[in-house]
Structures are given as C-alpha cells and as structure tokens.
C-alpha cells in the first residue's frame, strides 16, 4: 500500500508531531482561507452559466496552489513528488481544521482520489515525477475515463480500444460519466488492448490529455439540472507508450485498486474532506430545515423522520471510519469498501425520501429558492447516488461474494475471448 510506503520513506526523518502540524495548519487556514458555509460549498456551479463554473474552478486551482506553497498539499504523498510524507492521522487533523472554510474540495475528487492515488501506486518513477507535482499544485486536474455507454457496472467490459503502433497507441471509443471533463486536463483511461483473451486479461490503462482535437467532450443534463457529467468521444487519439500505466493487458490489476480508491474516497488519506460535511446534497440539517419551513417541528412523526435522517448520517460516518480501520488492521479485505458504498448509498436514498416526506404539500409545488426546493429536486434524482460510482446491486454482489465468500454468480464472459462475449444490442464494438 502506498500509504505505508510513504511512511517508510520518511521513517528516518523526523515526522512532524500532530499538535505542531495542527498549529501550522490552523495558522495558515485562518489567515488565508475565507469562512464558507456548507450550503455555499455545496453550490452546484454546473447548473448555472459556464463562466461562473470556470471562475470557481480557477479559484479552486489558486487555493490549491496556496495550500501547496504552505506545505499542506498531498499530506500522504511522498515528499519526492511534492507531497508532505505525513500520515493519515495528519490528514485527519487537516480534515478537522478546514471545517467551515473555503477549500478546493471540488477538485479533490477524482483528481487526488482515485487518479493521483493510482499514479502513486502503479506509476513508474518518471510518471510519478512528471504527473504528481502538477496535481498537488492544482495545475493539472484529472478525470476518470472509466465507464462506457455500453455498460455502467460491468466496467471490465470496456469497448474503447487501444491498438499498438510502434511505441505509441491509438485509442478509439467513448467514455461517459466523467465529472467536469470540459474543464479538466488529463484523463485516466481504461481501454481494451486484446480482444482475443477473456475480458479481464485484455485491458490496459493510459493517461491522455483531454484538450486535443481527437477528444470531443459533450455535457449531459441530469434530472436536477446539473450539467457536471460529460461524455467523450475518442477518435484516433494517440498516446505514447510512456503514458501507459501498469503492464500491457494487466489493466484490471490497476482497475481493481482504482475502484477500491473510488469507493473509499470519503475516507481516503489522499484527499481532504472537511469533517462532518456529507457529500450528498441532502443532509439531516436540510431535512430539519424543510420540516421547519413546513411548520411541522412539533409533529412527533416529523420529529422521528428528522431524527432518522440524522441517525443515518451519523452512522454513515461511523461505518466509513470503521471499515477503513478494519481494512488497515487486516481484519477485513479491501473488498469490504463495498459495505461502505452500500450503507451510504442506501442511507442517502432514505434521507432524500425523508426530506421530501417532511415537506408536506410544498413538495409538489413551491415558490422561491429554499430548503424545500432542494427536497423536491433531490427526491426526483434520489437514485442517482445509488447508481453513480457503481450501483448498489454491484456493491451487494461484492459484499456477498467477496466479503462473505458466497458462491459467485454464473457468468458467460469467463474463459472465453472477449470478442465472443454476448453484448447489448445497441453497443457495436
């Protein structure tokens, strides 16, 4: 694990103790990062005009640079690549200190986790030297070119194809569900390099610049008006072999860790998350505010629903921490990250339902902008969080089969060349 590597490297050096680290972080944060409420942090710029969104991203890049200059970027990344070579405990301190402050949290994911974490884990020395420092300085933002229109959960069934041409590769295909690809710089891309072997054995991971004529980016509008997601069309995109990460046809080894990092991202030591800020756009405080707006705070059934929302929020935090610790302690396999995914996804569904329930008839039609507006819109897109990042059904399979060791589902894509595997009618290879 790369976190352990980071610790080993710095073993001979004096590791800054947590209290002096906290003092240093706090001094920088209070002097340089403006106060910001959770609601302000949650604002979805992709709903509005492009100028505002670009300005926000530019602002976050600037903040990241300041944090880098202050020696607070990449807490668990080795110093050799621009990080701090510190421990997850230091990251936790930073997570506590940035609460209520303007912080570039939008660009943490997926740039730091999973992309930078994967480069750290699988990159060559040259790749780590080249790509990690600009990430930590906020200069280069990364996106995951992982999912494809032909299949969301079945990531390893990627149809995007890379064909070798001397010391370079030529990529063709389409990727989807990339957040903010239109303002990002690099894509971490899973592609098929061999159609004549079973699907997991013919994949390879590449790194490619997004802004180039052969990559076309389309924005997608979601049910809540968000336009954060994009679809890309890759046409004869040329990637030098030096920008391949991991071995040829061994991309699934990378992919497995990639998805592990993705599932753990809110508990990952490679990104910063203000403590107590939930990332769903509906939290218990919002549910409370909706109930207050509806004048139902004295209603015992409503009180129980507000309490339930807060209960699920507190437990989501606790289960994330516990599974993380259990994995670190070797008590559970990496696959147990799916438990966190499952619990948080189910809880967020329920919290969104509760927010809508307590709105009363205002959930049907409302005026102005307020907590109730969010409640109705969030109910409309309730399932989004149970689909994106891997469906809950996939998480249930992983928990049952990989954590509890139950028999795997019968599959028709095993031990046959990928080109012979049945595919959806709509996806042409």
């Amino acid at each position: 694990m790369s976190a352990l590597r980071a610790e080993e490297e710095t073993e001979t050096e004096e590791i800054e103790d947590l209290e002096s680290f906290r003092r240093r972080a706090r001094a920088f944060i209070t002097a340089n990062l403006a106060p910001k409420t959770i609601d302000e942090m949650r604002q979805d710029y992709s709903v509005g005009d492009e100028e505002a969104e670009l300005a926000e991203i530019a602002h976050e890049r600037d903040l990241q640079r300041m944090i880098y200059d202050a020696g607070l970027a990449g807490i668990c990344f080795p110093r050799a690549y621009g990080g701090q070579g510190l421990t997850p405990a230091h990251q936790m301190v930073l997570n506590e200190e940035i609460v209520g402050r303007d912080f570039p949290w939008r660009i943490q994911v997926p740039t730091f986790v999973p992309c930078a974490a994967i480069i750290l884990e699988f990159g060559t020395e040259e790749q780590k030297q080249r790509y990690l420092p600009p990430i930590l300085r906020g200069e280069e933002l990364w996106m995951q070119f992982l999912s494809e229109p032909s299949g969301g959960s079945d990531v390893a069934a990627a149809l995007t194809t890379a064909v070798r041409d001397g010391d370079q590769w030529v990529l063709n295909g389409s990727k989807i569900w990339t957040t903010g690809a239109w303002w990002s710089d690099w894509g971490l891309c899973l592609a098929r390099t061999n159609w004549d072997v079973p699907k997991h054995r013919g994949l390879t991971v590449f790194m490619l610049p997004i802004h180039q004529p052969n990559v076309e980016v389309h924005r997608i509008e979601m049910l809540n008006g968000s336009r954060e997601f994009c679809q890309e069309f890759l046409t004869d995109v040329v990637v030098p072999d030096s920008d391949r990460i991991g071995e040829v046809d061994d991309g699934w080894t990378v992919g497995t860790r990639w998805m592990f990092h993705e599932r753990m991202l809110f508990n990952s030591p490679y990104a910063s998350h203000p403590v107590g800020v939930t990332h769903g756009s509906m939290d218990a405080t919002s549910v409370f505010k909706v109930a207050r707006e509806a004048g139902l705070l004295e209603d015992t059934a409503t009180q129980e629903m507000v309490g339930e929302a807060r209960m699920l929020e507190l437990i989501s935090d606790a289960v994330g921490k516990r599974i993380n610790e259990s994995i670190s302690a070797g008590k559970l396999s990496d696959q147990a990250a799916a438990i966190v995914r499952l619990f948080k996804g189910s809880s967020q569904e329920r919290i969104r339902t509760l927010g809508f329930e307590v709105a009363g008839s205002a959930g049907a039609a409302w005026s102005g902008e307020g907590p109730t507006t969010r409640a109705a819109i969030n109910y409309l897109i309730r399932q989004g969080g149970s689909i994106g990042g891997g469906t809950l059904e996939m998480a249930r399979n992983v928990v049952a089969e990989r954590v509890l060791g139950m028999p795997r589902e019968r599959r028709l894509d095993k031990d046959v060349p990928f080109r012979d595997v049945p595919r959806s009618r709509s996806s042409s290879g």
Partner: protein
Amino acid sequence: MLINPTEEQEFFRATTERFLVEHAPPDALRRLRDDADGFDRDYWRRGAELGWTSLLVDEAHGGGSISGAGLVDLSLVAYEFGHHAAPGPLTATNVVASALSDRGSDGEQAEVLAGLLSGEAIAAWCAPELGARPDTWRTAVEIERAGDALVLRGTVRPVEHAGQAEHLLVTAREGAGLTQVLVPAGASGIAVETLETVDLTRRFGAVTFDGVRVGADAVVGVPGEASSDVGRQLRRAVTMLNAEAVGAMQAAFDMTVEWSFDRYSFGRPLASYQALKHRFADMMSWLQAGHAISDSACAAAQDDEPNADELGSAAKAFIGRYGGELIQDCVQLHGGIGVTFDHDLHLYLRRLTVNRSVAGTPREHLRRIAGIVEAREGEAA
C-alpha cells in the same frame, strides 16, 4: 466490538467468553426459563471476580478498569453477554455501582457498593423515561419531605431484576427537580409485581412505592439536581445495551451465514441464490454499522463528550430497529426451524427484542435526536 483492543482488553474479553461458553451454554439458558430469578447467584459472584461489576467504579472505592477506559472495557463484556445471550443483571448493577461510585456517600452507600462489587448483592435501576426534550425525564415517582424523612410514592415499570435486587436506585420528582435515592428493596411500602417478558433469563417487575420513608442519607447526589446524573446513567445503560445487542446480531448473523452454506435446496446451497445473497449483503452492512455506531457512541460516552447523547441515541435507535430486522431476516432465512424453541436463534432475537424496548425505544431516541438537532440549529440561528 473494538477493532484494535489492547492485549489486556483482549485477554479480559476472552476470559469472559470462555466463562460464558462453559457456564451459559444454550441448554442452560433454556433451563433458566423456569427459574424464578433467571440467573444463579454463584455464577454472578464468579463473574464479579472476573471483573464484571468493577469497571465503572473508581479505584478508591475498590473498582478499576483494564485500559483506563472502564466503559469501553465493559462494552466488551456486554458484547459477550449478547453474543451468548448470557444471564445476569449486568446493565443495572453496573449503572447503580457507577452512580454510587460517582455520587454515593461514604457510609452505608459505600457498603452497598462493596456488596455490588463482590457480586454478593445486586441492584435494580428504577430509571425514568425519556422526556419530550433531550435533557428532560419522565418519572411517576414523587418525593415529599416529612421532617428529615423523604416519602416516595408512585410506580416504575418495567424495572429489570426488581424482584431479585437487594437495592433500588430510584429517580423521583421533587418539586421542579429530580432526586435520586438508594432504597433497600425490602423497605416497608415497596411492592413488586412480576411482569412477563420474552427474554429467557431476564426478569422484570413493576415497582410501587406506597409511602416509602427513607432518611436524608438515602439521597445519592444533590437533591433536586439529579438530571445530569440521570443523563450519565442513561448513556452508560445505553452503551451496554447496544454492545449486547450487537453481540446478539453477530451471533445470529454468523449462524445464518453458516446455515446458508450448509443448507441445500433444488441442488444448490442457499448462499448461491442472488436474491438471498443481496439480503445477506444488506444484513452485513447493518451489522457493521451496528458495530461502528456502538463503538463510536461508547467512546463518546466514556469521556462524556458533548456529542455522546446524540451518538448514543443514534446507536440505540439504529441497533433497535435494524438489529431487529437483521435477526428477523435470519429467522426467515432459516425457515421453519428458525421459529422453534429447540433452535438457538431465538435466544438472540429475545435478547435484542428486550434491549430494543428498554432505556428508550427507537422512536423515542429518534425524537431525542431531533430535539438535539433543533437545539443546535436554534443556537446557530
């Protein structure tokens, strides 16, 4: 259950586990169904020797913890109690012992505490119920002063092991405040009506105080100002009940996972059906969530952190509700055998069912959480 117990904690836990495997096997629990007390005094004394009663008691009073965090240590015992559906007045005796250690007087109350520590005596906690707001309590017992004496009137129910206890810690309303008194169970004017329950080894009573007179030296803490003491006692009781319930969930879950591998229908093990695998995945997430919130709430209650009540209520509500769903689903997945007395599964269902409904039901704890959220938002506004 702690992920990283210290070596001493693990030794301590394993000692209790071995003791319970030997002295509280399922057949013994079934036999205790017809026992008036539900547990054997000698068994309890030997448990006290293992440290079951001393962890929340200050060293100056003859107690002491394993790790310096007595409530965390005790949660390991409570977990094993749930995991084995073990008999004995664990929660009430520890709550009362800790109250006497914190607030008790040096004379007679110190002697009572010594008896609880050694396991010679047990105590019942006549707790008030959760009130409408986070720090308010409901009790039907009232105190009137008659000269130097205090006179108690009212009924508390249900009280665990009221009929077996030598001592009762009672919370009563006195004017606008709450007062706690330690009363000998045999005092004149006390009547205990035996109640029925589903747990095989726990006994409950309704305790009526009909003009019970005690001296001022029976008061524990400051008269009229017991509200925060009650809050602390509730946090401790909730911590133990939660750890116990998680132990019961784990036992039922493990038993059912094993069954799903061994039981074949239509030529396949149950564990091979995706419809059932997905239910096991949900149960696994509830089980891990139960462990997680139980331990977080315990750590917060250990040091009486500001968020301890909120976490404790979240744990109590979640474990009561989802723990019940988990074990009921374990019954469903067992089929007919799961609803028979000969099978062991119901031992855990019984334990969880009772824990769910004492020291605040899930619904009461959810309302309490809402009250805490409202108070916080009120302050922020």
